[in-house]
């Protein structure tokens, strides 16, 4: 199943992925896929504008390194500002989801 994601949500998922340590874009995509049991499959190219935008905002920093198969890859790391941003967005998302659930669970007439 392939769900469409809003841009803000993608940012949040990427930040969460990076709490597990530095990753390159491919690894982030695989981690999200694995965590959601394949329910969420993002269009993987959209990661790159998102990653560079978050880097511009100072939530993550990048560094070139060597990937598993001895290739050059850009690794992204979470910054303290990024961690704070993740906390804020997670809180907002939880409140949003709870509110929607309340509506959906309302007693039918």
């Amino acid at each position, binding site marked *: 199943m392939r769900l469409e994601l809003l841009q803000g949500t993608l940012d949040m998922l990427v930040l969460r992925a990076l709490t597990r340590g530095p990753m*390159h*874009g491919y690894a982030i995509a695989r981690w999200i896929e694995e965590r959601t049991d394949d329910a969420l499959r993002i269009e993987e*190219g959209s990661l790159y*504008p998102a990653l560079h935008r978050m880097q511009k905002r100072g939530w993550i920093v990048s560094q*070139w390194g060597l990937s598993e198969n001895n290739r*050059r890859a*850009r690794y992204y790391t979470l910054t303290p500002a990024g961690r704070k941003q993740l906390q804020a967005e997670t809180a907002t998302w939880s409140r949003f989801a709870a509110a929607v659930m309340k509506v959906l669970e309302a007693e039918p007439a």
Partner: protein
Amino acid sequence: MDWIPDRYRELRSRLWPERLEEDIAEEIEHHLSLLTEESIRRGLAPDAARRAALERFGDVERYRAATRAIDESYLRKRRRMEHLDAIRRELRHALRGLACNPSFATVTVLTLALGIGAVTAIFAVLHSVVLSPLPYAEADRLVYIDSHVPGSSLGSGRAWGLSEAGYFHFRDNSRAFEHIGVYAGAFASNVWANLTDDRGARRVPGMAVSASLFDALGARAVVGRLFTAEEDRPGGPDVVVLSHDLWQREYGGDPAVVGSTIMLNLEPREVVGVMAPGFRLPDRRVDVWVPLRLNPAARPVNAHYLAAVGIGLGIAGALVTTRLLRALLFEVSPTDPLTLGAAAALLLVVGLLASLDPARRAARVDPMLALRAE
């Protein structure tokens, strides 16, 4: 290329923007190659695997372009921040330096203030008097005529305009002036007239003038004609001359407006002509010119509200007076002492500032050291 450290790569991106593009391409290619390998592991042929990878990635070109745009704006932002930081640092350093020497700072600021203020004031006067002269033919021969009213309650010796009778007296008896023109001055009640036509009503600035004013100021009509001295009598026809600006604005420059009738303050007036562009009174813009229609039989009364303008011709008395006025107002040239004085003042200010700092430093040198250097 693995040995290139990150800092150098950043510097490289800054100096050669194409490297930015290359780095993005490399990053994306890495992702694509990993996707391809995954597909190959699942049993696809290399070509099919590559195609599958591209499909999963999405529009490569679009994402590459978007990423590049983001990186470029990031670069610009970083450069801007660095410039601002540098400026801020320099400013703090300079201010600290000034704070350590408050007397020096005060002297500098005061000198600059005085110098700049003086030069600005001088230039402002020069500009209004010399550089932008009155827009009339033979402007250097124009004078205002006021009547001196000693002991008047509005301030002793204050000058008033001419009265109606005064104007005729001057016109008929004075040989000093070639033309005298009058217009109803600042105390006239209707400087603003209501112009009404089928498109509505609006207020326009107007002035009642004598026909001789057009002669005195060298006014010309660009369409039609200006009103004549015959029309400028009590009981004369209700005519009006439009300004060029009004003609363009309201009537689109249509020559057919001459001969038509417009309503001015609810009175019909025939348009006899349009004034040449740019013509105005020295102190105000006028959109509609109507005849003043002074009464030659008026008795001299204390309604001194006319301002008179005349051209000096040259009997000794008038000549001396006008010469004096000219000297005061118009004889400012590049070789004039006033201009030279202004230039000298500026040079003095600059020189003072330039020598202030070395003088300060020299004062601090130990006299013994200075002598020893001999």
